[in-house]
């Protein structure tokens, strides 16, 4: 198993891992560096996918989390075994932190039949429902009530101490599905954290054509949630706030709404040049690159030196390249070997005349 993708098995190792810096606050630095590693993995992996996309090697589209790595990594990091994660399209960092194997990602994008969706569905929709990572559908907001149901069922089964975290864009907050899901979670008082990343764009649509409140965290009170805001480019803030929200949900407080401000630092997908983003916006504080900012912090505070950083980068690149070349050698799905079953119950499969 590739190390950077070791995943949820690590939730215990996390505590016992040796401090990687000389800092006097090893635990805090540890997790900061761990988060950075997920961010970097996400960035390097996605750069690779983007370049494969430009080379015509990807099946379908590529949607990057560039600019959202800090908040996304935080989303995956405080979840433990038994917790549930409902990621969306810009959550590579969080998916990896939650335990998604790197090879799963690459297989899906490269159309290997060994990918978790076996060629039937692709890329950002991938999930591992049996490992508590939901497989999103495209319709934004639809996964929130699914998460609520997972959590209700766990409670009914007598499980304790679990939490669910799901993410959404600021655009997705405007769908009816989101509203119904957010509200029903509060009515059922499930241990839920909803992390909304306002990256200032829903595809090409700016905030002012999406909603009219000052900040989407203002929705919290109306649902009976506790609300939090973060500068999503500040990894420390992301870790602290998401940790607090997860802890509170786990402790039985009402559902938690976290709203992070960032700028989407890529097109909506790699097909999109995002030329509609006004240049002024790119110098706003929320437009900082969280990976660069974190790297700078690491260097300035001596958590790692330039050399160690370079090594980390090289190591991740090697892992990504390995995964890519493995997946590239794997078969694509074949129509003849596909059993074309829309139901698991074979005798109930319909046979309309052709």
């Amino acid at each position, binding site marked *: 198993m590739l190390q950077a993708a070791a995943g949820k098995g690590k939730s215990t190792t996390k505590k016992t891992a040796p401090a990687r810096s000389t800092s006097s606050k090893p635990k805090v630095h540890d997790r900061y560096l761990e988060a950075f590693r997920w961010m970097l993995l996400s960035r390097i992996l996605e750069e690779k996918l983007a370049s494969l996309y430009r080379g015509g090697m990807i099946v379908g589209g590529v949607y990057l989390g560039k600019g959202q790595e800090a908040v996304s990594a935080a989303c995956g990091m405080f979840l433990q075994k038994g917790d549930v994660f409902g990621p969306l399209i810009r959550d590579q960092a969080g998916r990896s932190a939650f335990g998604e194997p790197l090879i799963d990602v690459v297989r899906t994008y490269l159309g290997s039949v060994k990918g978790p969706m076996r060629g039937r569905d692709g890329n950002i929709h991938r999930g591992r429902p049996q490992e508590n990572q939901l497989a999103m559908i495209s319709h934004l907001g*639809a996964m929130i009530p699914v998460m609520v*149901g997972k959590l209700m069922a766990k409670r009914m089964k007598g499980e304790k101490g679990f939490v669910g975290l799901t993410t959404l864009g600021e655009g997705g907050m405007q769908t009816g599905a989101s509203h119904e899901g957010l509200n029903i979670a509060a009515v059922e008082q499930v241990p839920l954290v909803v992390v909304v990343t306002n990256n200032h764009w829903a595809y090409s649509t700016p905030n002012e054509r999406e909603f009219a409140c000052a900040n989407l965290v203002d929705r919290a009170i109306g649902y009976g949630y506790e609300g939090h805001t973060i500068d999503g480019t500040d990894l420390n803030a992301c870790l602290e706030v998401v940790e607090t929200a997860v802890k509170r949900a786990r402790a039985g407080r009402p559902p938690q709404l976290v709203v992070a401000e960032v700028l989407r630092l890529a097109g909506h997908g790699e097909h999109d040049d995002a030329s509609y983003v006004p240049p002024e916006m790119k110098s706003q504080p929320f437009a900082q690159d969280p990976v660069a900012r974190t790297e700078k912090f690491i260097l300035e505070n001596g958590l790692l030196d330039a050399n160690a950083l370079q090594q980390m980068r090289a190591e991740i690149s090697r892992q990504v390249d390995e995964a890519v070349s493995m997946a590239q050698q794997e078969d694509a799905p074949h129509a003849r070997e596909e059993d074309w079953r829309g139901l698991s119950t074979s005798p109930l499969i319909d046979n309309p005349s052709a």
Partner: protein
Amino acid sequence: MSVTYLEAIREAQTQLLRDDERVFIYGQDIAGKFGGAFKATKGLAEKFPGRVLNTPISEDAMVGTAIGAALEGMRPIVEMQFADFSSIALNQILNNAGTHFFRTNVPVPITVRLPSGGTKGSGPFHSQSMEGLYSHYPGVVVMTPATVEDAYTMLIDAVAIDDPVIYCEHKYLYYHLKADALPKESFPVGKARIVRPGRDLTIVTYSAMVHEALAVANELRNDGFEIEVVDLRTVKPLDTATVLASVARTGRLLAVGEAFPWGGVTAEVIARVATEGFHLLDAAPARINAKDTPIPYHPNLWSEHRPNRKSIAVKARQILAE
């Protein structure tokens, strides 16, 4: 003792809750003493605390929540207050529940109960028959029980099935239909049933229209015609074999449904027989559906909007005369 169609549904749910701890029921106004707009869950919330839960008016989230619970090993039953409101949940039903197994290999065992069909004075938004909409898409099973016995056994079957089941119960039958007792055995899931054997004409139908068809069969017997009535029971999968075998016997086909006329069950039945059993037909097949307008409110209009024994009999005689 006699049991109504509605009581059969309630009894099935009682047993499911009693025998299977994975089962819970989720819907509007189904809990408390109230027990549902039609009382299909009357008494169950008290008997099974925490397992019959009222929801906000959020059909989309109700189904989404059920999907999540099913993924976690539960067997939720969702009650829509009226089938017509399931339009709000159609996306969760078809695009989420209906695709999940194909996409991930993990099935979604939810049952969505739709109080369906017309009753007097209910109008365009409390009368719809939505089996056609749901059957058109892949990934779901669509049941349309016509009898007290089937209402009971098929609901138990529905919950046992690992895939999403849309269970269309007919509101007109709730109180009007009675049986002496509930059956011990169930007819196989997905199989149509010949409810009345005949030799001159096959009427293929389902749900409340089975009873209209039977009335027509009785009426036309006086004229010497023996009409075979096939109750589809489940419209998806549609039991083509039983339909074809019947048409092979009679040579004539009339498909009857209460839903709108364009597409839907009757079109699908005729398409299957025409494509797979063309040479079995001695005359042109025919169909009767509701009219192609919203369902009218006033009983004078409603009773002509839906198929009824008069219109079915007229059409049956036409086919028999060919």
